């Protein structure tokens, strides 16, 4: 029995979850981030765990770390200067992208600048056709020339991405070999080795993102590994991935792209785990921070996966836990426009300067200020004692808007909250509509610093009757790493008709995928525990221009059970689009295999049920529905399993404040989660 440690880096704090397997106890703590010395705070946190909870480095069995080094490199555009070798005649592949721009009504719509400017993109002769045959051999002299020019232009690394390389990577591999001779000092990644999927723009962008963050991620992980070793932690560090799984940090140094969205992914995995543990199968997770809120669906206890999630300005086309980010957070700023309409966001005070009530230089009213004015906040410091609430500043900021609205300061604050909730409602509504599900059948699981503050209000707007606030809302992402599987995705593009003649190709592809998965898990990761394989395929009706992913059973392809394969697609199509066409021919575009080396879920102790009512620490006054109302304030530690109470109530704890309006009945479950049910 040893320790399992999950560490997650956020904008302001780094969160620790440490599970002492001997006792089943979960210890959490937060340390301020030190952006100038990344990795330093990890050591600081470990030292604190050692001194406070008796953690012995030698007893650490697993160390899982979620890092934002990769995504920050993209957002801040501080990555490596790269060159791209593309098929001659198609050099503009990343600038044209998929054409459509994010904003369609204004004449100033524009694409973000590319990570590789056009003067470092080199067209190289040579052509592989769609069936994988070579039409024109690779222009080796052109590759050498490009290497020379790339170096002259200051490139630190080269991405090679040629047409149809997913089908036949020979030209990419030959070019890579040439580059390694010609320019051994430059690192090289090929499109087909990073993610060998059909669609040139998506494949190329994925490889570019990988190369762009590679040097920074590499050096960060190298120093982390060294520091952990120096501290006496023998377990190889693992890092969290965008797919909700983990991999060894050693592998992460080259497979950088698969960790870019790990932060949001592990939050959803953590929230999903907690929901499942509490018997909640359908959840809408809501992680609200300072500038944005991340929303995701848990269906049947499982996170949903997709591709095309945004990394900074760019879509990432590898399987990722589906998370929708909306521009409303605790720091969203309220204003009154020329027509006298109250608007909240999209402008945000973020965490610097932050809401006015933080007293750090923010002067404009935010959602957090409105909550402070109403009296929901301000009874305890926020964020592990690091932020005090200055209600006078909040009132001054909110008061600025009271006159143009013709309302009292309190009524203005209430209006700000209502408007921001309505705006979040509209955004969450889109996610729900896109998935064709009914929010009312889901439980809202709010977490993050501001989730529990707004969760009940949003649930009410969405008509959701159930809310579950985790015992420790602030460290859900770190927990997500702790419970994650060692997991990787593999893909092979086939693009075949689903018919008898395609079976040999399907069998060969499946065998290849299984080999690759086996090698990755057992050899690259050295994982020895039990593993599961999940097979799926991207399929479409012939003539459709997009695919949907349908889960398959491993035995179907070997058995040649075409009906089962088709049936899986028809069923999935019907589930997503409300119809299927059993008579239409089906094409199988990509075969996907997920390998997951399973981590035994921690068995958190169930606490015995307490008797009776919880005792509020005191009574506070909270403005609700147009009047100040006496409202009990509870300390979260005092809420024991079995306790029940009714809203309105304020629940304070180190990492978040939960605001429970009238009309919700609260119950504490055996794991300490707070379940809120809308009454009537």
């Amino acid at each position, binding site marked *: 029995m040893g320790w399992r440690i999950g560490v997650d880096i956020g904008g302001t704090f780094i969160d620790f979850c440490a599970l002492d397997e001997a006792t089943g106890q979960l210890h959490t703590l937060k340390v301020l981030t030190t952006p100038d010395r990344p990795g330093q705070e990890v050591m600081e946190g470990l030292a604190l765990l050692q001194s406070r909870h008796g953690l012995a480095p030698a007893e650490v069995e697993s160390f899982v770390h979620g890092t934002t080094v990769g995504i920050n490199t993209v957002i801040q555009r501080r990555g490596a200067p790269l060159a791209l070798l593309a098929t001659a*005649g*198609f*050099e*503009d592949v990343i*600038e*044209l992208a*998929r*054409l*459509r*721009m994010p*904003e*369609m*009504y*204004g*004449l*100033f*719509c*524009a694409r973000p600048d590319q990570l590789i*400017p*056009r*003067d470092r993109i080199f067209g190289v002769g040579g052509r592989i*056709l*769609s069936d994988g045959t070579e*039409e024109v051999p690779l222009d080796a002299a052109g590759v050498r020339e490009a290497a020379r020019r790339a170096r002259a232009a200051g490139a630190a690394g080269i991405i090679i991405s040629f*047409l*149809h390389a*997913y089908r036949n990577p020979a030209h990419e591999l030959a070019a890579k070999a040439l580059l390694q001779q010609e320019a051994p000092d430059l690192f090289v990644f090929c499109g087909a080795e990073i993610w060998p999927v*059909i*669609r*040139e*723009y*998506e494949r190329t962008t994925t490889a570019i993102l990988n190369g762009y963050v590679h040097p920074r991620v590499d050096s960060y992980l190298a120093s982390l590994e060294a520091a952990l070793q120096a501290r006496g932690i023998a377990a190889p560090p693992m890092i969290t991935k965008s797919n909700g799984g983990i991999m060894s940090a050693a592998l992460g140094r080259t497979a950088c792209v698969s960790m870019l969205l790990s932060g949001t992914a592990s939050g959803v995995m953590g929230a999903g785990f907690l929901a499942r543990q509490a018997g909640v199968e359908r959840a809408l997770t809501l992680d609200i921070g300072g500038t944005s809120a991340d929303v995701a669906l848990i269906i049947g206890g499982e996170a949903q996966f997709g591709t095309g999630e945004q990394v900074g300005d760019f879509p990432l086309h590898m399987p990722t836990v589906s998370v929708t980010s909306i521009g409303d957070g605790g720091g969203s700023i309220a204003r*009154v*426009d*020329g*027509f006298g*309409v*109250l*608007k909240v966001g999209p402008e945000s005070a973020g965490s610097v300067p932050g809401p006015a009530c933080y007293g750090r230089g923010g002067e404009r009213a935010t959602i957090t200020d409105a909550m402070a004015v109403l009296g929901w906040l301000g009874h305890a410091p926020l964020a592990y004692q690091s932020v005090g609430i200055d209600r006078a500043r909040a009132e001054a900021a909110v008061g600025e808007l009271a006159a143009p*609205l013709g309302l009292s300061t309190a009524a203005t604050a209430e*209006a700000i909250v*209502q*408007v921001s909730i*309505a705006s979040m*409602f*509209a955004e969450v*509504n*889109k996610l729900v*509509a*896109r998935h*064709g599900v009914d929010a009312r059948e889901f439980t809202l699981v709010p977490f993050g610093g501001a989730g529990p503050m707004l969760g009940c209000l949003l649930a009410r707007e969405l*008509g959701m009757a159930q809310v579950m606030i985790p015992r420790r809302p602030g460290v859900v992402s770190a927990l997500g790493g702790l419970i994650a599987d060692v997991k990787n995705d593999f893909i092979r593009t086939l*693009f075949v008709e689903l018919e008898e003649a395609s079976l040999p190709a399907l069998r060969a592809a499946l065998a290849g995928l299984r080999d690759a998965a086996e090698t990755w898990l057992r050899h690259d990761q050295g994982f020895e525990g039990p593993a599961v394989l999940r097979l799926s395929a991207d399929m479409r009706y012939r003539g*459709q*221009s*997009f695919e949907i992913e349908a889960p398959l059973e491993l035995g179907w392809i070997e058995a040649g059970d075409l009906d089962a394969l088709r049936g899986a697609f028809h069923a999935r199509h019907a589930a*997503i*689009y*409300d*119809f299927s066409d059993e008579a239409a021919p089906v094409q199988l575009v990509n075969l996907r295999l997920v390998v997951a080396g399973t981590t035994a879920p921690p068995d958190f102790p169930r606490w015995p049920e307490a008797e009776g009512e919880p005792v509020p620490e005191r009574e506070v006054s909270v403005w609700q529905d147009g009047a100040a109302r006496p409202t009990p304030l509870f300390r979260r530690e005092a809420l024991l399993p079995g306790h029940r109470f009714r809203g309105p109530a304020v629940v304070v704890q180190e990492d978040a404040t939960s605001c429970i309006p009238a009309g919700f009945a609260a119950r504490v479950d055996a794991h300490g989660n707070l379940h809120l049910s809308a009454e009537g």
Partner: protein
Amino acid sequence: MDKVTLEIFANHARAAAENMAYTLYRTAHSTFVKETEDFTVQLTDPSGNVVAVPMDLGATWYPGITYGRAIGMIPEYEPGDIGFTNDPYSGFLATHAPDLHMWKPIFHEGEIVCFACGHIHNTDMGGAVPASLSRTLTEIHQEGIRFPPMKLYRRGELNEELLRVMLLNVRKPEQNLGDLKAFIGALNTGERKVRAMLEKFGVERFRAGLQGLQDYAEHQAREILRAIPDGQWSFSDFADEDSVGGNPCRLRLTLTIQGDSAVLDFTGSDPQLTSSLNVPTGSDPRHTLLLVGVYYVLCTLNPQLLLNGGLTRPFTCIAPEGTVLNPVFPAAVGMRSLTCARLRSLIFGAFSQAVPEKLPAAPAGTSSIMNVMTTDNRTQQTVLAAVNPVVGGGGGMPHRDGTNGSGADGAYLKNTPIEITETEVPIQFLRYGLLPDSGGAGRWRGGLATVLEFKVFAPNTRITARNRDRSRFRPWGILGGGPGRPSDFVLNPGTARERVLGNTDIVTMDPGDVIHIHSPGGGGRGSPLEREPERVLEDVTRGYVSAAVAESDYGVVIRDGAVDLAATEVLRARLAGNRTPAHFRFGPEREAFEQVWTEAAYAELTAILAALPVHWRFFIKGRLFAERAAHPQMGVREVYERVKAGLPGLA
């Protein structure tokens, strides 16, 4: 309604519209809906004025559409009814036959409180040609089966007979039916969401909210107009051809802004055409097709704009009957999208004179939609597929270059990966990228054109490229910026078998043939001589601009990969001497055309044609163009008298 509740109501109304849009998008069958997103949904007030639209799904044309006339053509409604029409001449709701519009009244205690509405573009509605669209068609009857406003559902019961008539007459009945079902689902979703809103807000506040949102949008539009100085600005833009191989088609606008309202007078636009390029607007002073360009301008001037019918209230349009912008029955209208693109650039041009500091130069302004029909030599099966839309760049903006290869009013189009097309269609791409030197030169350069080249391998391979335009008259530059390079369409470029196809939209290819197409580039903004030399150098190193054009257009001399500052200074001084001030730069083609067809001559032409019976106008226009080409020294009136003398039926 108070302004706090209004904002909350706005979010709920938008959410209702977005729910409708996602339901339609998710459950529709056709590529038109799924890929092109050629559909819209709206919530309207009981009079049929739009209150809310989705923001990121569907087409951009109809936030100000008015359902009222079509709604009124059905005498009474009951709960469960759904009205529909696709006839461009009944109610002036549908604007070509493939667009099927539907509306569902939503009742509360016996009264209609709003309508859930929308349209889908059907792949085919029957008629003379597949997809129901061709420039060659000359009357509406050739463009497919039409339904005047009538009930598709009566008290929740589908009118199966009507549906059978429709499905019998169209080429892809299963697709039409699939999309129709999805559409009905979307309307029902809209009704459900409206019911939830009624419950939350109560009927009185619901009604007030519908009006309040329109007032809000109106207020925003008026604020924008008020910030523009009062004045009158005129502008003309030309489509290259008014019919297959025809003459230019002029659109004319006089924009008058006074205080917080504006009049758009399209008098002077060409007479209605004997081709399908007419834009049916039914003399509606606020017809949405006339105002699409205005939506873009307003959204550019205030990106936070609320989109609904209230926006259109400050505007009054005048489009005389019998003209290309207000044709009378039975003029064909199928390809109105080509003319609508010119209509947008016409509006951009007029506003760019009113607020030159705030608006960009002309975007490429035409997107050729490419389709290929060929035979797979291995399977011997016919393959019909959409290839990429060929979209051009945006115009130079006040603060940055026009976007390359897409942007402005073409930003909604998507492409298909080369790898997908090559896998599905037996063609091979040789090139897909940006065309150097195609963006208009300027302080801020116009966005580059897209170029596409591919080879085919089977006999009788047929390529169609809808919306071909701007291969003659270029996207204009402003404030000293040059025009973008025109579009072109060439068979077997650089070979002995080269054939320049210009605005041709159908071409048949032999095995081994290569087709080249490029879009226009965007117009430039501001004098190219004022562009920073380093920026010009960067364009050269990136291959966007050649060293030769850097010198000839920008006056920047580049030697050994660096700017020769001394030589640049000398050259720029010399070039500056040759420049004349003008708001617009149109390029040599339009300048040459306007040498012959001067402003005065065209006014004369318009006056003559406007005085004729509608059925004579297009014919006489063609004759006058031909005669004047033969006798360029003669005046328009003189030529007309000669033409008239040979035409006994013309009084």
